[in-house]
């Protein structure tokens, strides 16, 4: 396989509800999910929404409190040089989905993409 054909597996989690500190903690509108699907579909060649809901928890750095959340998991394989585009998309997604940051795994390494 040529080096340029190698892709990095990236996946990210979008909580099913808006952040209750930034916003109201309500479910996202269908328009928000449609926006994400269209952006992924138009920017990248492929992508998958994993079935089901991913339940998890984290400590909110602003409040110090434990937060339980449920998320949807999106998987996309990208050439290394296009990972930056995914980060830019997720920065916009922070605004659309009213999140402080979004969990992104790039080739097994985790980062948190925050609002611009």
């Amino acid at each position, binding site marked *: 396989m040529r080096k340029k054909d190698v892709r990095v597996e990236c996946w990210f989690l979008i909580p*099913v509800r808006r952040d209750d500190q*930034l*916003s*109201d903690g*309500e*479910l*996202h*509108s*269908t*328009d*928000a*999910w*449609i*926006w994400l*699907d*269209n952006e992924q*579909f*138009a*920017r990248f060649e492929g992508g*998958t*929404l*994993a*079935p*089901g809901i991913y339940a998890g928890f984290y400590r909110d750095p602003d409040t110090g409190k434990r937060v339980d959340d449920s998320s*949807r998991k999106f998987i996309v394989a990208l050439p290394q040089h296009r990972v930056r585009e995914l980060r830019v998309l997720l920065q*916009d997604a922070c*605004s*659309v989905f*009213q999140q402080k940051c979004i969990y992104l795994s790039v080739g097994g390494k985790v980062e948190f993409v925050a609002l611009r």
Partner: protein
Amino acid sequence: MHAKYVDIAGRAYDLTPLSSEERKLLSRLKRLANRVESAEYRNRSLQEIATFYEGRGLSRREIVKKPLHKIAQDFGARKQVERGEARAPDYRDQLEELIRTRFPTRRAFCEATGLSEDMLSHVLSRRKHLSVDRLSEALGRIGYSLRISPLSKAS
């Protein structure tokens, strides 16, 4: 299938320009939306639509503007609402989209509409509502208007 399709947000799509192949695909996707869970519908409908239009030389950016694609997404959106996975959009979601797509910043939107940034922030965070008069006036300043549209079942 009726000559007009109204989506969950009240946006209407004229079905008369759709080809017979597009209508067949749409019917197939509607059946699929009723049969499978949301993620599977999303993945399979995007795959089918990509195959259909890319085979006709359209780019992805062109495909996402096609009425068939938008209606197919609405089939999925309605199921998401039925299953309690998402909510139907309201005027605040439309405001957010307007700001995101037509203005470089929220501040630019506020300057153009005369709304205060503080008020806009409360409205978009679902803490406050704008009065109909205030919203109409603000939208009028940027060439938009409020519209009452019919609710519709997926047709």
